[in-house]
């Protein structure tokens, strides 16, 4: 059973080599990888649900000397989301890239990115996390540059430098931890950790590095150009997964490994930055001229909500109320992952079919691409946080936690952010519904439109209904 952990890393990595050596059979390899990783993710989730956290010691060496892979409810949920989003995005990408030479370049890097996502979510070793962060950063940068135009390359270059700076800061923190505690194993460290200069400085450095990578306001400056100028399938996973796993690492460090030394003031600081992200990101999304830029700024805002949970979790005593808040946080993150991936793919369809993604010129899109417009509407509902989307459950917990701890500021921010989100989504939909005759079929280009539709439906209905099992999985986890 625990072999599933190593297969989740080895499978996409082997597939990357296969697509490099046999470019003609790449699509088959990718689909098989997607199906197998999704199954492995499902099995893992089931196993974690029934047996609790799993670990796998690579090479048979005890963790500490060697490196252990670990999975608990949180990482298993994110792994399954990664598998589903990557599978859908792969199907979409096989239609998006029309030239053989483009696909030959794209697939190996895509699978290397996939490897790094899984490896990061499973890693139980601080230095190994640094290596996975670099693999994630480099593969994401190359994929983002595949757009090839000046804007894409310039944005990718900035993305690379920011990412490198982030991982170097992270590594500096890891070095301090090794100097002070003599171990890199996360589980061992969680038992040893104690307040003091080493711990605080290390946590500050690692967090600063990760906040750069997860683009928390005001360190978000690199994200909109990079996400808006990348090819659509790449934008989808950059926004839905790549920044999300960096956030996962912040969560892991703050609520798990370093939980004993995190102070209320530090958590409040993250909350304030999150509030800034919600307001600034939503405002810029409202003012955006292009759909892709809107979606990118909306990512900045949605990440902000996730950081609003930190002061709540710090203030809530452990118990059902806190567990509920953790569940809300995870559901919000998952919903955003599905919804934003779907949104970017839908935008990609519009961009390729209409030749542009300017919001003002969308008139009639609802008639020409009804399924895609519907996917955008579904994603929009999830981004605003209306029922029955998973985001509604998440935001509900955010509000409930704020009431319970008397932190009124976050309530105001959440409400303001949601109103702004409603405004920018309805602005898009208002333009999309014009007056033209309806076509015969709702879905006009299947391979391109279905993935977005399925993902956004997941965000809307799937996660709304799956709330209870998610909570059960996370119980007592963080």
């Amino acid at each position, binding site marked *: 059973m625990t072999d599933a952990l190593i297969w989740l890393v080895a499978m996409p990595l082997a597939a990357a080599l296969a697509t490099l050596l046999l470019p003609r059979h790449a699509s088959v390899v990718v689909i098989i990888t997607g199906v197998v990783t999704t199954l492995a993710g499902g099995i893992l989730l089931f196993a974690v649900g029934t047996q609790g956290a799993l670990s796998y010691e690579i090479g048979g060496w005890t963790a500490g000397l060697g490196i252990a892979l670990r999975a608990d409810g949180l990482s298993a949920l994110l792994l399954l989301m990664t598998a589903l989003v990557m599978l859908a995005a792969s199907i979409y990408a096989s239609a998006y890239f029309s030239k053989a030479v483009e696909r030959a370049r794209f697939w190996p890097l895509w699978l290397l990115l996939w490897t790094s996502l899984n490896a990061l979510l499973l890693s139980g070793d601080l*230095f190994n996390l640094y290596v996975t962060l670099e693999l994630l950063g480099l593969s994401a940068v190359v994929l983002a540059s595949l757009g090839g135009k000046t804007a894409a390359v310039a944005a990718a270059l900035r993305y690379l*430098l920011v990412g490198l700076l982030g991982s170097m800061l992270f590594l500096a923190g890891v*070095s301090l931890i090794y100097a002070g505690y003599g171990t890199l194993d996360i589980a061992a460290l969680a038992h040893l950790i104690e307040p003091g200069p080493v711990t605080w400085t290390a946590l500050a450095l690692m967090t600063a590095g990760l906040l750069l990578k997860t683009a928390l306001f005001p360190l978000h400056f690199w994200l909109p150009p990079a996400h808006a100028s990348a090819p659509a399938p790449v934008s989808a996973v950059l926004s839905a997964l790549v920044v999300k796993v960096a956030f996962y690492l912040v969560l892991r460090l703050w609520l798990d490994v370093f939980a004993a030394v995190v102070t209320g003031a530090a958590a409040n600081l993250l909350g304030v930055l999150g509030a800034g992200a919600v307001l600034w990101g939503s405002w810029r999304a409202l003012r955006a001229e292009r759909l892709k830029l809107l979606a990118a700024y909306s990512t900045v805002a949605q990440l902000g909500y996730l950081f609003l949970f930190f002061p709540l979790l710090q203030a809530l005593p452990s118990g059902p109320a806190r567990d509920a808040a953790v569940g809300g946080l995870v559901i919000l993150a998952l919903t955003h992952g599905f919804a934003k991936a779907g949104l970017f793919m839908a935008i990609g369809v519009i961009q390729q079919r209409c030749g542009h993604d300017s919001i003002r010129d969308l008139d009639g899109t609802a008639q020409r691409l009804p399924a895609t417009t519907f996917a955008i509407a579904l994603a929009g509902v999830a981004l605003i946080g209306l029922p029955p989307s998973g985001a509604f459950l998440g935001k509900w917990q955010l509000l409930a936690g704020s009431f319970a701890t008397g932190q009124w500021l976050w309530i105001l921010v959440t409400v303001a952010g949601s109103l702004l989100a409603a405004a920018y989504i309805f602005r898009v939909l208002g333009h999309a519904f014009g007056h033209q005759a309806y076509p015969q079929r709702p879905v006009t280009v299947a391979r391109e439109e279905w993935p977005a539709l399925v993902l956004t439906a997941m965000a809307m209905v799937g996660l709304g209904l799956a709330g209870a099992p998610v909570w059960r999985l996370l119980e007592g986890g963080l």
Partner: protein
Amino acid sequence: MLTAQLLYGLTGCLIVALGLRTVLLHASLLHRVVAINVLGAGVFMILVAIAYRGPGVPPDPIPHALVLTGIVVAVSATALALALARRLTAEQSND
């Protein structure tokens, strides 16, 4: 605590700060790439200083292995940054 550990470790801290300053100062791209490499060298210096155990005593090999990995990752990233810069120049002259 050994004097050499302290000396080299503190120099590492200084070099990290020197590198970071240039990265943040919006210097030319080349200088920023060099600066990130310098920053990394500072971190590596801290790691190698941690590993040192005094003359004649075998040092801790784990930080050495980590630094070796770090050096290879740094050169990969540098190579990629330079390739991106080259492509950017090509695209700009096309525009």
